[in-house]
């Protein structure tokens, strides 16, 4: 697309790699965005649904506002009710809640960056052309951990096999296919990020498991209630050790 000279309207619907349904409309004048609108494409009415229900129940309902940041809605709802009652939860409960929220934060940072955003920044196809040894060297420099060229070679081989199968799956029509000027990273950097993308899928498992030790399950925690948390079993030493190990 000749970006510099374009004048007109661009609609992107659906916006992908988000939670929910979003439409973005932009008006472009000579390659510069002059006006923009965003519009949600789904209305469920959770606020209307919780009206009239007992306050101590509401955290279950609003948690389903989003399955990615799920626990944050539940916690806020519980805090709102406790504030209204001028009630302070016991310190142990607060600690457990913080642990649950903390694991959610780390989990979300990881998943949000790699599996939701990163495909806008790194080019999986270009990773196939990278030199694994150079990639490992760069990764070691940047991250401070010892990166093995063998690992990157394996990732590259796996990607190669995947691309050659002809079934690109969720990478179909990706913007980087065939090269795109917006993707400015070197092939080695792309390979590092591709490897992290795949490894990230395994790491997020452990983070979710750590949260589940206190929240009962992940997504959608169930142990947080108005007044505290219910997970006595999780405070046993072996469970705490399990959490720490993760």
């Amino acid at each position: 697309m000749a970006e510099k000279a374009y004048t007109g309207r661009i609609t992107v619907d659906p916006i992908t790699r988000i939670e929910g349904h979003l439409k973005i409309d932009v008006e472009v004048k000579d390659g510069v965005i002059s006006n923009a609108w965003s519009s949600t494409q789904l209305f469920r009415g959770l606020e209307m649904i919780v009206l009239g229900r007992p306050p101590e129940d509401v955290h279950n309902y609003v948690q389903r506002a989003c399955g990615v940041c799920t626990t944050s809605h539940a916690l806020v709802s519980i805090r709102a009710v406790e504030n209204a009652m001028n009630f302070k939860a016991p310190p142990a409960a607060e600690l457990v809640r913080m642990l649950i929220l903390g694991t959610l934060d780390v989990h979300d940072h990881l998943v949000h960056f790699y599996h939701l955003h990163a495909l806008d920044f790194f080019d999986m196809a270009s990773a196939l052309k990278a030199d694994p040894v150079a990639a490992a060297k760069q990764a070691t420099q940047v991250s401070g951990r010892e990166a093995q060229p063998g690992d990157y070679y394996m990732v590259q081989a796996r990607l190669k096999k995947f691309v050659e199968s002809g079934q690109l799956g969720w990478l179909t029509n990706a913007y980087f296919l065939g090269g795109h000027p917006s993707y400015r990273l070197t092939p080695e950097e792309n390979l590092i990020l591709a490897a992290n993308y795949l490894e990230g899928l395994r790491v997020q498992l452990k983070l979710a498991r750590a949260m589940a030790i206190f929240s009962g399950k992940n997504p959608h925690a169930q142990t947080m209630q108005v007044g505290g948390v219910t997970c006595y079993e999780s405070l046993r030493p072996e469970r705490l050790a399990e959490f720490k190990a993760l």
Partner: protein
Amino acid sequence: MSSSSRISAKLLDRQLEGGRMSRRDFMKFCGIVAAAMGMPPAFAADVAQALETKKRPSVIYMHGAECTGCTEGLLRAVDPYVDTLIMEVISLDYCETIMAAAGHAAEQALEKAMKNPDGYYCTIEGAIPLRDGGVWGKVGGETMLSLFARVAGKAKGVIAMGTCACYGGIQAAAPNPSGAVGVGEALAAMGIKPINISGCPPNPINYIGTVVHLLTKGMPDLDAVGRPKMFFGSTVHDKCQRRKHFDAGEFAPSFQSKEARAGWCLHLLGCRGPYTYNNCPTAQFNQTNWPVRAGAPCIGCSEPGFWDQYAPFNRDVLMKGEKA
């Protein structure tokens, strides 16, 4: 028939008769195909690989009125891991949560996936809003009702993922502002009977187990509300580890009681286990825990209409005449 296609037919016939094709013959066949495609002889090796590699089944994953919790739940799968699943087991040809393309590119990816000559399986997460012609939920400018009818209608099989897709879920709770209903109900007129994997969210084992069963042994046995009996055949109460406390009449009276601390039965605190069908006590979530084990009473999240029928949650289910 041209000479090249005649040779191909002869080679294929031999294969069909059950006689094994020698490697040399097979490569000869690939060479002919390559030549027919106007490619140099070296391309024969690529053809060989493409034919040998079995094509991964195509899955189209649609999102309706949902919270994406079920997709997140799927990300927690361990057997197989989700990266193995989407790279080596299936071909996830459309899934708005992780797919690279957006807007028109995504729409085209969907249309391309729907034209797959080998067909595709459709998984739908989230309910379908019906009020006002379905305008309260749209994807790419098309109502979810219309889009899902198209996609599910052509699919080899439809799986409704999560309580929302099965029975309407959270948005269908009173007063159901968007008129949301489950996939089975919305598309019943088309004769679509999805396999219901309910739960809020479902254990990924239940979904993946069903997909594997579909691909290897065909349709699983379903219960009266469309859930595979192998996962939803018993109640949470049946296999609960706190059952010995229930049987002994040991009920925790409140969350802060010493009985709750001791892990007594949560019946009086509103556990819906006895009438909830799911495998939570045995399968567990994230390989480590499940609500009752963590002291949280079951809310019955795999049952139709549980947001209304089993509410309010932290007390025993309401009797006739009792108010919330």
